[in-house]
């Protein structure tokens, strides 16, 4: 419950803090990216670190293996595809 409260608090406060101005590009996987990534950080991290597919695989793996992001394999592929297709370099 503590976690739920914190999450709610952060969603509300972050929305008020201007975070809602960050708009990702439309495309398959946008919702999965928003749900999974915005759990811990604002989405401006994504365009800031635009990179190729290998780079995005490395980043998403780091989020899962190091930062403890609870992303399952099905979502992981969707997320990497979206990032590589829309924020490639």
């Amino acid at each position: 419950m503590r976690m739920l409260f914190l999450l709610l608090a952060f969603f509300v406060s972050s929305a008020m803090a201007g975070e809602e101005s960050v708009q990702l590009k439309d495309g398959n996987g946008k919702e999965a990216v928003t749900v999974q990534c915005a759990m811990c950080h604002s989405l401006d991290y994504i365009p800031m670190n635009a990179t190729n597919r290998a780079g995005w695989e490395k980043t998403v793996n780091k989020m899962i293996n190091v930062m403890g992001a609870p992303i399952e394999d099905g979502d992981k592929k969707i997320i990497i595809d979206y990032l590589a297709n829309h924020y490639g370099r």
Partner: protein
Amino acid sequence: MMNRRRFIKKTVASLVALSGWSVLQQSALAANLVTMDSQESPILDTLEGKKPLIKQTFRPPNYETPVNYFDTAFTPNEAFFVRYHHAQIPKINANDWRLHIGGDALSKPLEFTLEQLRNEFEIVEIAALCLCAGNRRSLFQPPVAGIQWGSGAMGNARWRGVRLRDVFARANIDKTALEVSFDGADSGILRTTPDFIKSLPLAKALDENTLIAFEMNGEPLPHWNGFPARLIVAGWVATYWIKHLTTINVLSKPANNFWMQTAYRLPKDRFTAEQFDSQVSETTVPITDIAVNSLVTNLTDGQVITGIKPVDIKGLAWDGGDGIVSVEISTDAGNSWQPAALMQNHGRFSWRHWRYSFTPKAAGEYTIMARASSHSGMSQPLVAVANPSGYHHNAVQKITIKVV
């Protein structure tokens, strides 16, 4: 664990669906909407208690100081840069705050209130540059992952507090003590995210210039800069300057966590820097002290200057505590160099302003460069030394101005 994870995920998903991330996006003022491409012009945004700063990321908050604030010796608190790894940042009531000192190489744990620190130890003040290891990362080519800082992830301040070594004089530190680790009150949203804990070699922790600071430029620390107390490691990059400091542990073994053993590291033998022997691996070393560097603060690349008249070139120079011995200026793309005048010296850990007056002989393009050198004989390279995390960008700047 999985149940809790699923629960969180479902909660976020329904929050997005119900309160509507996309609705939020669509309902926001059109003028504020930015469809994020990879190339963005700077967004100025205001955190509570701060002036508008250059927003890098909203959450965790990462904001850099616009260079126009660098004209003064000390950076105003309300314009001082903000850098966090974690999004959960509690607002701390100074009366409730406690500093815990423990660890396996300390026989008697200690606890202090802010008042005790203020009243029971000598108060000292140091002018020191606080510089993010990744300052200017955006200048690396090819790009390096991480916050794409420009030149403003730094600030100079007068830090007031107590020496860590004076506090440690109250503790029985064991002969086995090797490192001292520092933890702040901020943490990740998920409990699975590794807490941001940094360690120092024992000798650095006991250095007279390592402080537990509670004031900055004569005022209490701003919330976003570590209220009510933060670590100051004068001369070392800011990754060690733990904000909202709550726990200090004296350790007999090297601190073993992601932030020490994977992040904030450099390839071995690529930089000349202070040693951190207990954290050296076969291939990498931790980043330690600040590299000698300079910044032109009053000219920008491509600037047009009307009329053939003296052009003031102003800027800053700094290093990790050896002190700046000279700044040389070139106005002909590095063919010849002349000394700049060094301004007031606020101490070896402070940045130092400099100035040079350049009178162009004719209209045309001039490439301005500044190169700082320290008392230890170090100076800036012409090309930044590549490293996987994009630290220590201290290449000589090249600024082309057009005199018409």
